[in-house]
């Protein structure tokens, strides 16, 4: 009987097709076959990035005017030159550092408030009924629309910018956490209950981990919106920060710096969402592929 069980239920290991000719040395060949798709994706990705740079280069060196005007747009080489200058410029690094700090504080506060609030709202009807209407009214207001109000509310510019960043990421985090809570399988709650779990344990052992995938969706979206809100706020009311740097470059007719600022924002945004994804994989090993 155990033998039969093993036959019907043993996990089938991913066996490579026996028909594939062993053209490489066996391990190298297998490595190649297993990673074929990823290798292809990487190669195509590199090629398409190179093509993008090439088109950019051609459009700017020939100053193409075709509906859009590339007359003043900096070339990739000009941007690279200003990049090499900027990384030795403590002021540029300070811009980046301050933006990152604002994101860190604003986003962390949003997560620290949003996730527990969402969990509690998902668990306790009364809290949900009380908080949800307010949240629904405030949610559609874009964080940028808060700028004047934030300047009035907070004594310093720094605080109002962090506040805007907080607001931007708060609602996606809250709403996704709530959504995760509403999808928790009630049968899992029952399973925990008849194993002797009480309210607190059910919250910690069932509701929270069950909602984690959606919490991380909220964190990822929240991080994106945090950057959008931050850059807007910095452009309007900042004296430092990568958004301010980009806007200032325009005022000072430093065209290469505009593109440099934009690329820096893109890279920072990408980096922070990768960080969140990495954290998600650490916290949710059961979802690893």
């Amino acid at each position, binding site marked *: 009987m155990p033998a039969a069980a093993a036959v019907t239920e043993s996990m089938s290991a991913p066996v490579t097709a026996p028909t594939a000719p062993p053209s490489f040395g066996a391990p190298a060949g297998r490595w190649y076959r297993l990673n074929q798709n990823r290798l292809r994706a990487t190669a195509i990705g590199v090629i398409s990035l190179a093509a993008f740079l090439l088109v950019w280069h051609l459009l700017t060196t020939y100053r193409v005017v075709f509906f859009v005007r590339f007359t003043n747009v900096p070339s990739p080489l000009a941007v690279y030159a200003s990049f090499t200058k900027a990384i030795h410029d403590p002021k540029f690094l300070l811009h980046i550092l301050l933006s990152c700090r604002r994101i860190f504080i604003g986003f962390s506060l949003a997560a620290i408030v949003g996730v527990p609030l969402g969990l509690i709202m998902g668990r306790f009807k009364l809290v949900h009924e009380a908080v949800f209407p307010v949240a629904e009214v405030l949610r559609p207001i874009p964080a940028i629309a808060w700028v004047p109000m934030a300047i009035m509310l907070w004594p310093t510019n720094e605080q109002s910018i962090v506040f805007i960043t907080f607001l931007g990421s708060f609602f996606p985090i809250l709403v996704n956490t709530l959504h995760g809570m509403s999808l928790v399988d009630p049968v899992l709650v029952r399973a925990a209950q*008849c*194993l002797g779990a009480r309210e607190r344990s059910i919250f910690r052992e069932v509701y929270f981990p069950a909602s984690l995938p959606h919490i991380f969706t909220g964190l990822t979206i929240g991080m994106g919106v945090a950057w959008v809100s931050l850059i807007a706020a910095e452009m309007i009311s900042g004296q430092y920060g990568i958004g301010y740097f980009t806007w200032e470059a325009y005022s000072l007719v430093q065209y290469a710096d505009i593109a440099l600022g934009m690329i820096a924002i893109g890279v920072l945004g990408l980096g922070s969402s990768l960080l969140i994804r990495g954290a998600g994989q650490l916290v949710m090993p059961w979802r690893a592929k």
Partner: protein
Amino acid sequence: MSAMATATPQGHIEVENFSLSYETIDGLVDAVTNTHIHVKPGEFVSIVGPSGCGKSTFLNAVAGFLKPTTGTITVDGERVSGPSAERGMVFQQYSLFPWKTVRENVEFGLKMRGMPRSQRERAARTLLGLAGLEAFEKHYPEKLSGGMKQRVGIVRALATGPKVLLLDEPFGALDAQTRVIMQQILTNMWQRLKISVLFVTHDIDEAIFLSDRVYCMTARPGSIKAEIPIPLERPRQQSVMMSSEFLALRRGLMSLIREESLKAMGGEINDLGMQGLNIELHGHSLVEVL
């Protein structure tokens, strides 16, 4: 394991005059009415009935998830008032915690009881070994086959040493071969642990093969229509299902269930449709006959 083996046989379930109605927009829906059953300590009892007859409703009430509308449920004389680790439950949808490894799933009940980590790890390993799952202790449930998942489900429910094990169509989602193996594993565990089992299924063969006694439930609103003792000797081999004794029991139960299934479908199809099941068409189209 030792904690469970030394427990004196307990788990006397007594259900009297039980009924349960759901409140819906259209008013009260009687799911189960006027039901009496009992399970003696160490007995294996099944409830069979057509789907929708209220088997899950009844089992959920015994587990303590639903409150009876009338009647009482007691286990060893104590009234059931909510879910408890005394009554282990196995669900059709496996219901393992996806974020816990196989071993952590099995440990869950012991953790809730406050058992220290090293101790419960050891207990979980022993239990997984009995179910032939020791090699999978670090796997997450998603990676397991249905049969393995349900073995984990059973082991998890047994880990806390409950007095009673409740199973709601636990093998309903498994293929036929796996189901046979699972039935044997369940029988083995039950015989070792000597706890009371209340097993819900719509599979007549399964009910007869496993049980000491089978209750047959009527179509909705469900109530107990018949109680059939299964005097087949134990340990039972697969071959018992070919014996004339088994087949006679099966025939009896089958006709009881068939009546009830027809009744249940009649409610959906309407009276004509129900007659239609017995009408010979003689080459006429169904529309003509109607």
